[in-house]
Structure formats: structure tokens, C-alpha cells
């Protein structure tokens, strides 16, 4: 069961102006990815861009998997140029995954922007059981709304400019919804991926309600497998029973110890 192989591009299509959906056919005998895991994909055949780029599992397909990506710089620009039939070096699936909700817990998924790519397969797996909160800057940047509508228990949308769903941040929408929903406030478990300010907001909501929240983090990566120590994130660690006083910050690897962390452990 390999985690390092050459995949074949079967599709690479625009989802909107700045986002693409890449479909890969993987060889037999490759490790099946879990929601929250990611891949390091080759970005061009030359030395510039140099490093592989990290992308979350978006969705498992019959013959492989898909990645939903936003054009950002030269790496994603190179990947955008891939055509069906092209070969692509793939390393993965990597990292840990979103843990399943404990019995009795109600899953709430919060995504911001391209963070939707990371939680999509989780929502799919939770088969209409998850409350989904999904925010973007503007209507045009909301992706896969039809699919999300079908897969969610409830889909809540927000945009910064109010062009779709409620106006404001998705954390605001989440807070408002929690305020009117005692059951969720008591039994929710949060899963989130998106920009740092949003994750911080989600962590705040979770901590206020004493709920567990799992956040998926991003950090610049070189190896993706725990070897380079490049993807450090500060995590609180304490001797058991020593309480808050005994806590100190240690560096964990987003690629191996994460990308999914319990929000209470993060040094925000």
C-alpha cells in the first residue's frame, strides 16, 4: 500500500474564476485517504516552483480522489496547467484526520473560504448529520453549494459583503445560531478549517460553551512527512495533573501531528 506514486490527471476544471477541481486516477494499492488528510502534489516539472504543494483530500472518487484548489502563486498556477492524461507525483495521504463525533455528539462543521475543501469529505461522510456553516468574502467565492445543500443537515451561508446568506463573518452566524439552540450548545462538536482569524473565533465559541473543537491548520511545508520540522505550530503541553501552571509551549508538526488539532491545545 503505497503513499508515494504517480497519478494520472483525469480532469482539471475551473469551478469559478479562481478555483479549480483536479481529479486524479491513482494506481491500485494506494492508501485510501480519510477526511482531513492531505496530499503533497508536485508543482511543475522544473526546479521553480521547487517544493511540492499541500492540498486536502476534497472527495474520494471511484478511481482516485479530487482536490479543490484556489490559484494563489506559482505552484497553483503550474498545477492549473495540468491536462487530462498528464502525470503527477503524489505523496499521501498524509497527517491525521477529523475524528468521528462521539456518540450523542452533534457535528457542526465551520468552513471559511477554500477551507471548504478540507471539510467537504467529512460532511459527506457525516451523511446529512452535520450542521454546516460556510462563509466566504462574496457570493462568487462560495463553492459546491448544491452538493453541500444535499449533504448537510442544515447549511448556513454567510458572506462578508452580504451578497449571499447572512452578512458578516461565519463565526458571527455560528454564534447567533448557538444562542438560539440549547441542544447544540450542550452537545455540539465542532470541526473547522479556514483562515486563522476564523479558527480563532471558532475556538472562542467552543471554549465558551465548553465544547470540543477540531481545527485544521495550515503551515508552510517542505516534506509533509515529519522530517524537515518546517511546519511547526505552538502547542500547549503539560505534565499530567500539573494544571495550567505546568503548561509550556512545544512545537508540533502540522504535517504529522496535525493538520487537525484540538483547538484547546493550540497556542492561539
Amino acid at each position, binding site marked *: 500500500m503505497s503513499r508515494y506514486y504517480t497519478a494520472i490527471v483525469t480532469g482539471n476544471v475551473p469551478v469559478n474564476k479562481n478555483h479549480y477541481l483536479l481529479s486524479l486516477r491513482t494506481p491500485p494499492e494506494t492508501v485510501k485517504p480519510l477526511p482531513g488528510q492531505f496530499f503533497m502534489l508536485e508543482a511543475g516539472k522544473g*526546479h521553480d516552483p521547487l517544493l511540492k504543494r499541500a492540498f486536502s483530500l476534497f472527495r474520494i472518487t471511484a478511481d482516485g480522489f479530487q482536490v479543490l484548489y484556489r490559484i494563489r502563486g506559482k505552484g497553483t498556477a503550474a498545477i492549473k496547467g495540468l491536462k487530462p492524461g498528464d502525470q503527477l507525483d503524489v505523496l499521501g495521504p498524509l497527517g491525521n484526520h477529523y475524528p468521528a463525533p462521539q456518540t450523542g455528539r452533534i457535528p457542526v462543521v465551520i468552513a471559511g473560504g477554500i477551507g471548504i475543501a478540507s471539510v467537504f469529505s467529512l460532511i459527506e461522510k457525516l451523511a446529512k448529520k452535520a450542521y454546516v456553516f460556510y462563509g466566504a468574502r462574496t457570493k462568487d467565492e462560495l463553492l459546491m453549494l448544491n452538493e453541500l445543500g444535499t449533504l448537510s443537515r442544515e447549511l448556513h451561508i454567510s458572506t462578508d459583503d452580504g451578497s449571499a446568506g447572512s452578512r458578516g463573518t461565519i463565526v458571527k452566524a455560528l454564534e447567533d445560531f448557538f444562542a438560539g439552540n440549547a441542544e447544540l450548545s450542550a452537545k455540539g462538536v465542532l470541526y473547522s478549517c479556514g483562515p486563522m482569524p476564523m479558527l480563532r473565533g471558532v475556538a472562542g465559541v467552543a471554549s465558551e460553551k465548553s465544547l470540543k473543537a477540531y481545527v485544521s491548520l495550515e503551515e*508552510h511545508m*517542505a516534506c509533509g*512527512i515529519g522530517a*524537515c520540522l518546517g*511546519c511547526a505550530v505552538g502547542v500547549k503541553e503539560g505534565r499530567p495533573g500539573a494544571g495550567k501552571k505546568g503548561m509550556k509551549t512545544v512545537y508540533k508538526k502540522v504535517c504529522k501531528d496535525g493538520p487537525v488539532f484540538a483547538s484547546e491545545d493550540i497556542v492561539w
Partner: protein
Amino acid sequence: MDLSVNIGTLKLKNPVMTASGTFGYGEEYSEFVDLNRLGAVVVKGISLKPMQGNPPPRICETSCGMLNAIGLQNVGLAYFLKHKLPFMRRYDTKLVVNVLGNSIGEYAKISEALDDAGVDAIELNVSCPNVKKGGILFGTDVKMLARLITKVRAGVKQAVLITKLSPNVSDIKKFAKTAEDCGSDAISLINSIPGMAIDIQTKRPKLKNVIGGLSGPAIKPIAVRMVYEAGKAVKIPIIGMGGIMNAEDALEFLIAGATAVAVGTANFIKPAVTIEIIDGLKDYVEKQGIEKISSITGSINAG
């Protein structure tokens, strides 16, 4: 056709090693690389006490290169001996441990402990560009370097002693010669070159540590030149590195004067690149009808 090379008394089955800090403790790559096939595995720099490393961001990409300021995060000597060393012992390859100290005494202490534990070789990292103390100070001052090597040499009985030189000097020949004169069995070079990058929107450095080490193909011409220069100054074997991405790059180093090569940044891009390089070297010597790969060392025709 003989791919083996000698680094002091150490016989490597082929000239391809991994570069310290880019291959974890060997374990991390064991899923992707048959470690038994490697000439040697060089593990991440070890210090006396565990080190936390620098705050993030620690890496960023540059044109044909990358900057890193890991800050030598490592598990420390004791943990390494107990938990990391046994893993590598299971493989039929040579194990080189990269060592970093804050003082001559620390370097000596770590080296002796590793020697006692039976590691095959010790690589003194006197050239880490991103820790404030130690390291690079020794690497850019010949007198300090001489004292350091002499002291460590006295305590190391079995292990082969390699000094990893800093590229951040005007005259690499002087440092290479010093290493040789003070009893190093071999030298390795180059370490990453101090560099930095700035985000022009935030005006913040892209690395929290401001300065980091530049590695990757961008630095290869500088590395090949330094290996060539060092090769003219010393008789001890040279382990060449800096930007090696494939067998052709590795051959450039051998022809310039290296006896072995180490592959660093390329591991991140292609986890099994070391094996590709070994196969590529085999191919080359076969096609060229070369019997011993060691005969390529320094075979440059610069006339």
C-alpha cells in the same frame, strides 16, 4: 563495477548519503526508501539537551531554493541514544550523526557519547546559519575551528570524524586545511547559506527568525565551486552537497572533487530521490566503462 567509496576507515556501499536535517532520524523516510541501499544516513543535528527550535514560520520557498530556520529542534542526546539510534541499527547502512554544541566541551561530550554508542561517523556541524550561539562561530574562525576539532578528535576513538564546513567564508581552502590538519577524517560541505526574504505587503520577514539557510538547486554552483576549491587544498575525502537533485548533479560534485555526496532538499520533493541517484550513478559508470566510481573523484579537466 564498484560503487563503493571510503570515507576514512568507513566503507560506503555507494557515494550517496542523506544531508543532515533533511532526512529526519531515518525513520521518516523508511516507508519510501529502502535504507539498506543508501551509502549512509546522516541524521538531524543532535545537541546535548533537547532543543525547541525557532517559532514559525520556519521555511519559505525562493527561486529554485528554500530558506529554513528550524533552529535545530531536536530530541537531545539522551533521547536519541535511547529511542532513535536503535531504529537505524536495524539497517545495513552507515549511520552518521550530526552534532551541534554551544561550546567545545559540549561538542566533545556529545561526540564521545556517540562514539561510545558505536555510531559509524560523527559530523561536526560548525556551520548552522540559524542558531544564535555556537555553530557558525566555529565555522568562520579558523582558530576556534582548530581548537574544536583537536579537542573532539582526542576523545573520539572509533567513529570517523567529519567536519561540516560553513560556506560563509572568503577562503574555504583555509578551513578545509585546518580540518585536515587537526585530525578530521573527512570534510563535508556546503551547509545552507544565510539568506532572507521579506513579504512586501506586511514588511515582515518571511521567516520569524528573519534569517535562515538557503538550500536547493539555487546554491549548487556555489557548492560545486567550494568542493572544487577544497579538493585542491586537502587530501582527506570530501562529502559534497548543495542543490543535488539528480544523478547528473551528484556527478558534478564527484568530478569537482567529492568522494561522496549528500542529498538534502531534494528528499522533500522526491522522497525516493536518493535511490534514483544511486541508479543514475550506476548507469553513468556503466556507460562510461568506469570500473570504480572512486576514480571519478576530482577528475575534472580544467586545462
